[in-house]
C-alpha cells in the first residue's frame, strides 16, 4: 500500500486554497496530457503549449469540477477542446510542417551536413523517422502508444483513462507495434 493521495483529495485541497496540491496534480498528469495532445495534433511543440494551456485552464476552472475524483477525465475534456480549437485555427492559417516531405528537407540540408558526425546524424534520423511513423498511426493506436511511452503508466491506468478494458489496451499496443514494424521495415528497405 502507498500513501499516495487520490486525485479527488488533491482537488479538494487545491479548492481549499492549497496551490501546492494542484502542483502535485500537474506533475501527475502533465505527461499524459502532453501525450494526449501530441496524439491529437501530431506536433510535439504544439502539444507542449496545449498541455500547458490545459493545465492552467484546469486550475482556473477547478471550482466547476463537480466530481473531484474524475479530475483526469475532466482534464482530458479540456485538453480535447484545446486541441480541436488549435486544429481548427491551424486549418484556417497554415500548411502543417508534417506536410513537407522528407526529400525537400534532405536536399536543403545536404551541404550543411556533409561534415557531421555520420553515426549521430543517422541515429537522429532513425529516431525522427520512428516518431513520424508513430504520428501517422491510426488514432486509437497512436493515442495508446504515445500515452504509454510518455509516462510510466500501467494498462489499468490507461484503461481507466480511455474507458476501455486492460485487454483492449494490450490489443491496441500490440497492433500499434505490429503496424510500426511493417511500416519501418518498408521504409528501411
Amino acid at each position, binding site marked *: 500500500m502507498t500513501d499516495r493521495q487520490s486525485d479527488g483529495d488533491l482537488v479538494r485541497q487545491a479548492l481549499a486554497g492549497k*496551490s501546492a496540491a*494542484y*502542483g502535485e496534480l*500537474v*506533475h501527475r498528469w*502533465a*505527461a499524459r496530457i*502532453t*501525450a494526449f495532445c*501530441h496524439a491529437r495534433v501530431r506536433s*510535439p*511543440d504544439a502539444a*507542449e503549449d496545449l*498541455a*500547458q494551456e490545459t*493545465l*492552467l485552464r484546469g*486550475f482556473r476552472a477547478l471550482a466547476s469540477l463537480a466530481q473531484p475524483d474524475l479530475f483526469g477525465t475532466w482534464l482530458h475534456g479540456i485538453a480535447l477542446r484545446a486541441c480541436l480549437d488549435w486544429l481548427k485555427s491551424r486549418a484556417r492559417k497554415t500548411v502543417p510542417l508534417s506536410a513537407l516531405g522528407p526529400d525537400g528537407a534532405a536536399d536543403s540540408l545536404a551541404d550543411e551536413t556533409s*561534415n*557531421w*558526425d555520420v553515426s*549521430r*546524424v543517422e541515429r537522429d534520423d*532513425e*529516431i525522427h523517422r*520512428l*516518431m513520424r511513423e*508513430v504520428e501517422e498511426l491510426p488514432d486509437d493506436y497512436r493515442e495508446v*502508444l504515445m500515452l*504509454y*511511452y*510518455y*509516462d510510466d503508466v*500501467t*494498462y489499468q491506468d490507461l484503461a481507466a483513462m480511455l474507458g476501455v478494458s*486492460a485487454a483492449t489496451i*494490450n*490489443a491496441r*499496443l*500490440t497492433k500499434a*507495434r*505490429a503496424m*510500426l*514494424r511493417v511500416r*519501418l521495415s518498408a521504409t528501411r528497405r
Partner: protein
Amino acid sequence: MDCPTAMNLLSARIDGEIDRESLIVLDAHVAGCDSCRVMADEFERQDSELRQAFAPRRVAAAAVATRVVCALEPAPLRIARYRWWGVPTAMAAGFLLAVVMLRPWKAPVVASNPPPTAPPVTSRLHTASDLAQRINGALVCGARLEAAQRWEEDIRRCGGECASVLAQHVLTCRASDRAERVWAARILADVAPTSSIPDLIALVGDEDGDVCRYAAEALARLTGRPHCAEPDEWHNDATSSCGTCEQTWHSWWQENKQKFASKS
C-alpha cells in the same frame, strides 16, 4: 496457443504486464515457433528504440509541469523602477507642501531640519538564493529574455548559486529558446563553479555550437585543461566537435571527479 495470442502476450511481456502462468505458456510457444521468436526480438528492439525516441518528449513534458507549477505561484517581484515623471512630480509635490506649511510670505524662514531627499534610484540588492529563485522563475515561466537580462550583473556577482539554475535551464529548455540558452551559457562560461562540471560536460555535447563553446570555456577555466576545439570550429563543425569533446571530457571526469569532490 496460436500466434496472434502469442503476439499479444509478447507485447504484455515487454510492458511487464504478463502473469506467471501466461509467461510459461508463451515461452513454450516461442521456443517452438520461429516467426514468434523473430517477432519477440523485433518487439524488444522496437521497444528500446521507442523509449529512446520518447526520452526527449518525457523531459519536455516534465518541463511543461514545471512551467505550470511556476505560473501558479505569485509572480516574481519586479525590481523597483521609477517612471520618468516620478521624480519631478514628487519634487514638485514636496515643494508645494513645503510652501503651504512654511508660508514664507508670513515670516522669515529658519532652517531647522535638513531638506527632504529623494529615495535612491537604484535596484535593491538581492541575496544569492533570492536571485536564483527569481532567475528560475523568469526563465522557467517563459518570461522573455530581457526580463532575465536585467539581472545579469547581479547574477555575475552571485556566481555559483545562480549557475546551477542557469545550467538546468540550458539543459532542459527547448532548442527554439536559443537566445535564452546562449545567454545563460555565456554567463556560465564566466561564473560556473566546480560543482557545475557535470552539467557543463553535458552541455559540451549540446547541438548548439555556441552553447558547446561556452560550456567548453567554462570547463577550461575550471580545470586548466586546454580547449578541445578552436572557437570557429564550434560554428563550422558543431556536431562533430561537440560530440568528440563531450566524450573526451566525460572520460576525463570519470578519472578526476574524486579530486573535485574532495575540493567541494
